[in-house]
């Protein structure tokens, strides 16, 4: 399968990456090269195989549903590029 430039732009939008016009061509080439490499997986018959998401997990442990940490507003905001009134500031999202 190979990607055209429109597809590359669409994926970039999904990934919230901005690709300037001059980068679309080379990126398209790189991605198609990688996809072509990945296509060899089609040689493998997996019709009887169950997908494997993770390894060495015999069971999923549960913890008690209790509050163990919290109230760290200052710590959480300390790395934010812009803060006001204990909140993260972003550009206006509603008109």
């Amino acid at each position, binding site marked *: *399968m190979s*990607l055209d430039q429109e597809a*590359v732009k669409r*994926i*970039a939008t*999904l*990934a*919230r*990456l*901005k*690709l300037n016009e001059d980068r679309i061509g080379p*990126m398209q080439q*790189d*991605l198609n*090269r*990688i*996809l072509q*490499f*990945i*296509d*060899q*997986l*089609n*040689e*493998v018959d*997996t019709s009887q*195989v*169950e*997908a*494997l*998401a*993770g*390894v*060495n*997990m015999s069971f*999923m*442990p549960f*913890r008690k549903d209790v509050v163990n940490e919290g109230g*760290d507003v200052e*710590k*959480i905001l*300390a*790395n*934010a*590029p*812009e803060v006001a009134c204990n909140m*993260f500031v*972003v*550009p206006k*999202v509603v008109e």
Partner: protein
Amino acid sequence: MNELIRLTLVKVKEGLRQKKFSSVELTKAYLASMERHKCMNTYILETPELALERAKESDQRLAKGEERPLEGLPLAIKDNFCTTGIQTTAGTHILKGFKPPYESTVTQKLKEGGAVFLGKANMDDAAMGSTTTTSYYGSTINPWKRADGKDLTPGGSSGGSAAAVAGGLAVAAIGSDTGGSIRQPAAFSGIVGVKPTYGRCSRWGIVAFASSLDQAGPLTRDLRDAALMLEVMAGHDPKDSTSALLEVPSFEKALIQGVKGLRVGIPKEYRIEGMDEETLKIWEKGAEWLKEAGAEIVEISLPHTKYSLATYYVLAPAEASSNLARYDGVRYGLRIPGKTLDELYENTRSEGFGAEVQRRILIGTYVLSAGYYDAYYLKAQKVRRLITQDFEVAFQKVDVILTPTTPTAAFALDEKPTDPVVMYLNDVLTVPANLAGLPGISIPAGLSKEGLPLGFQLIGPAFDENVLFRAGRVLEEAAAFKSFLER
């Protein structure tokens, strides 16, 4: 060169206990070496004041005879381990200035073990790479040199950690390994690197790349050092539900158990095209050494090996695209303003991620997108099961598997392939252990024709790192490899 920085961690430990030198003296020797070798670009951030403060505390404990397992030992920490209040960037621009409000479990354990942190070691951008050239903070240079004198890559992504240990800028280091990022740089730098079983060490507080593959481990000057480090780093952590609820065995004890009666598998599929003649020869020699020490050599087959890389380059980017979605310019790190929120996201992410990371995010986004999920992501997960089953079958016949760590020795920084797929071939021998969640180790094997280190890789069954230490020690003794600092 100060003699102190040539010693192994275990030797340093003895010296400290016998009061031959203090942790402050030792730490100062390392800080001076770091200063002298700034051009190697091993560290993204050096923390000399903190290191000396910690060393002083260690000396007080040593004086009182209250030393902990790693008391006063100066380490390098890969920059993707969160360290409270100390800048953690994972080599990526998007985490610019990020000072974590919490400590990773592994670094917490090292601190509680008495270790002194010299600084945060350089690494590939978000751990994506095998060269440490994709780091936003510039390339790290391998202390080893070829006859032509060109600057070589230390490998990656834990290249800063490997170069620090090999070049005398830390007595030992920690790294993380998603597809070979501990073992490959260890091989390129002539040191030991351990990728433990998936679940052996907690991933809490490690900047996530591919969560089903990432694992922390030590990079050290010899196997005994690695055993000691891993004993401190390993163990269950309630904060990481994938960390195993198992006792941590004594890896040090395994070192003296030998290989008598051990069955060592040689997978025929690892004889790949493009592998150097000398790599093949050294591999054969390794098998001979193990045989002479009483092991039985068995040819085995891991039939799906050839699909490992393709599987990895679907699954790792898929997980990465999801993990890296959190970098949005809102809560921490870099922000490039935009008129709308989407524009802010796009501006920040395009500026903050390097070319390789962007490629992988795009591939990952594509293979997870509607209409392609089954064809790529699910398909790769199925092949992952087949790769894992290959190992299960093999470990019914053998106890441990011996391979080379990399097809070739370190290459020059300006010889880095421009084709991403050719670059990915570097990981061809290390990726399968990550996909199957198995422990792997790289041990110095000898020198290439060009006088550069080559590594043996041992792969063991899940949670049996001990077998790696047993067989590894025999290889280490037989190879009698002289490290960069011993030459």
